[in-house]
C-alpha cells in the first residue's frame, strides 16, 4: 500500500512538472500539435496502468491505422495493379494488338484473389486454399534459392576470412559451436554436449552484448518524444 502511495506521488510530481511548464512556456497554437501531444501522453499513461486515456488512444490508433493501410492497399493493389491496367491504360494491348499473355497476367491474380471471398460460402469454402497455396508456394521457392544466397553463402564466406589472430580463432570457434548447439538428431552428451555448451555461452554473450548495444537507440527514442513534448508542444525549451 505504502509503495502504491509512493508511485502515485511520483506520477503526480511528473504531472505537476508538466503543468508548471505549461504555464511557463509558450504552448503551440497548432491544433494538430495538440492532438499529437494528447495522444502521446495517453499512450504513456498506460505505463502506470490501463485507463480510459490509453483505451481511447489504442482504439483510435487501431482504427486509424487500419483505415490508412486499407486506403493504401486499395490504391496499390486494386487501382494500380488491376483497375488501371484493365480499363484505363490497357497494358495488354501492345501496338494495337491484344496480348493474351499480358491480359492473363492481370486477370489470373484477380481471379485468385476473388477466391478469398469463397470463405463466406459454406460449400466452396475450401477454395480459399488455392490463393493461400499460391502465396505460400511462391515464398517457399524464395525461401530456397535466394535465401541460400543471402544467408548460407554470405555468412559462410565472411566466416572464412581467416587470419592468424585471436579474433579469427574466436570467430571460428563461435560459429562452429553455435552451429553444434543446433544439432537436433543427437542427444547433447559427452563431447557434443560440451561443444554445444560452449555454443550456448557464445549465444548468451552475443545476446547480452546486443541488448547493451541497443539501449542507446531506445533511449534516443524517448529523448525524441521529450523533445516533441517540451519543444514543439509546450515551447518551454527553445
Amino acid at each position, binding site marked *: 500500500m505504502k509503495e502504491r502511495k509512493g508511485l502515485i506521488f511520483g506520477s503526480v510530481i511528473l504531472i505537476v512538472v508538466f503543468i508548471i511548464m505549461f504555464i511557463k512556456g509558450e504552448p503551440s497554437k497548432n491544433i494538430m500539435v495538440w492532438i499529437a501531444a494528447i495522444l502521446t501522453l495517453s499512450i504513456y499513461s498506460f505505463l502506470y496502468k490501463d485507463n480510459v486515456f490509453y483505451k481511447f488512444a489504442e482504439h483510435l490508433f487501431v482504427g486509424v491505422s487500419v483505415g490508412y493501410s486499407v486506403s493504401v492497399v486499395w490504391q496499390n493493389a486494386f487501382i494500380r495493379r488491376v483497375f488501371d491496367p484493365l480499363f484505363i491504360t490497357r497494358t495488354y494491348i501492345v501496338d494495337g494488338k491484344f496480348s493474351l499473355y499480358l491480359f492473363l497476367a492481370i486477370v489470373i491474380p484477380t481471379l485468385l484473389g476473388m477466391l478469398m471471398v469463397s470463405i463466406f460460402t459454406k460449400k466452396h469454402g475450401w477454395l480459399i486454399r488455392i490463393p493461400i497455396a499460391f502465396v505460400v508456394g511462391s515464398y517457399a521457392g524464395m525461401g530456397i534459392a535466394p535465401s541460400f544466397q543471402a544467408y548460407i553463402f554470405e555468412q*559462410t564466406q565472411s566466416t572464412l576470412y581467416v587470419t592468424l589472430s585471436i579474433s579469427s580463432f574466436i570467430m571460428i570457434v563461435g560459429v562452429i559451436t553455435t552451429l553444434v548447439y543446433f544439432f537436433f538428431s543427437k542427444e547433447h552428451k559427452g563431447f557434443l554436449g560440451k561443444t554445444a555448451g560452449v555454443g550456448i555461452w557464445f549465444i548468451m554473450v552475443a545476446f547480452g552484448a546486443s541488448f547493451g548495444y541497443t539501449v542507446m537507440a531506445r533511449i534516443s527514442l524517448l529523448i525524441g518524444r521529450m523533445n516533441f513534448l517540451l519543444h514543439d508542444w509546450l515551447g518551454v525549451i527553445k
Partner: protein
Amino acid sequence: MNILLVFLFLIQQTPDSLPVDTAQVTEIVRPAPPTNVIAKDTPNDAGGSISVEWDISADDGKGLKNVNLYNVYKSKTEEGKFDYVGTVGAARTSYDDQSVEKDNKGYYYIVKAQTKEGVESEPSNISSGKSQAQWFHHGRWAYLILGVIFTLFFVLYIRMAKGKKLFIRKIAGLDAVEDAVGRSTEMGRPVLFVPGIGLLSDIATIAALTILGKVAKKTAEYETRVIMPNYDPLVMSAAQEVVKQSYTEAGRPDSFNEKDIFYLTQDQFGYAAGVDGIMLREKPGAIFLQGIFYAEALILAETGHSVGAIQIAGTDRVTQLPFFISACDYTLIGEEMFAASSYLSRDPIMMGSIKGEDASKLVLIIVIMVGTVLGILGGLHLGLFENWFSNLINWFARG
C-alpha cells in the same frame, strides 16, 4: 519549374550540348583516347545488353590529367555513323549498353575520352560484340551444387526414416506448451497466441501456424479459449482453418469460436498497442509469441510479463532474440522454431528432414574447418594453400 530543371540537367549530360569549339582557332588540347576497347555479351542476363570495356586514357589521372568522362558510341556497321549511347565518369573502365535492340546481331563500339571543357579525344579502336540470352546463370553454380547436395540429404533421410523411430533432442520451450496451457486452464484464463507481424509469405509465420495447431489441440482438450489477434488477414484465414481442424481432431468442433481469431491491423505499432490492450483486459494465463517480430517484441513481452502470464516465445529474427530471452520464460531460438513442427508431430518423415538439416549443417562445419586450416597454412605463405584458400573463398563469394 522542376520539370524544366530536370530537363536542363538531362541535356547537360549528353555531350552534344557541350560547346565543342572546333571552329575557333584557339589551341585545343585533346586527351589521349582510351585503348583496348572490347565489346562482348553481358553475361548471365536475358539478352539485350552488351558490355563495353576499355583501358583508361593516358591522360586520365596521369599525363595531362584532363580526362573527365568517357563517352560510348555504337553503330550497326563497322564504318557507319556512330551514335552516342552513354557516359561514365573518369577512372571507370566499363559500360553496359542496355539499349541493344536485337540479340545475336553484331554491333560496333568506340569510346572517346572527354575533358572538363567538353573536348573529346580521337575515337578508340572499334570493337564489335553480340548480345545473347543465357540458359543458365553461371554465377550461381555453387548455389545449385550445394542446394542439390542438401536436397539429396533430405530425400535420403526422409526415405530412410519411414517406419522408424528417430531421436530428436529436447527443446525446452516446446515441452512447456502443455504446462502453460494447463496452468492457464487452472487459473481460468484464456491462452493468447500472437503470430507477430510476419505475413503468410514468411516461412517463420508458417512455422508459427504449425505450433498454433498443437497449442489449439491442447486448448481444445482443456476446454480453454485461445485468442489470436492478427496482422495479416491471410494468416488469419489460415489460422482459423488450422484451429478449427485442431478442435475437430480433439472432438470438440463446437467449442471453436471463429471470432477469437480476428484481424487487428497491419501497422507495426498499432498492432503492438492493440495486443497490449488485449493482454491487459483479457489477462491471459499463457502467451505464445511465435513468428516474426521486430521492435514490438519487447513491448509485447514486457506487458505480457506484467499480467503474470507464462510466456513462450520464438522467432528467427536474431536482433529480437535477446529481448525474448530476457523477458520470456522460454524462447525458441531461430532454427529451434523451424524444428518445432517436426518435434511436435513426431512424424518419422518430419524427423527425417531434421536429420537432413543436421547433415547439411555438418557439411558447412566441415567446410569452415577446412577453410580455417587452409587459411592458417595460407597465412604462413605456403603458396599452394594460399591459392586453395582464396579459391574456396571465391567459390563462396561468387556463388
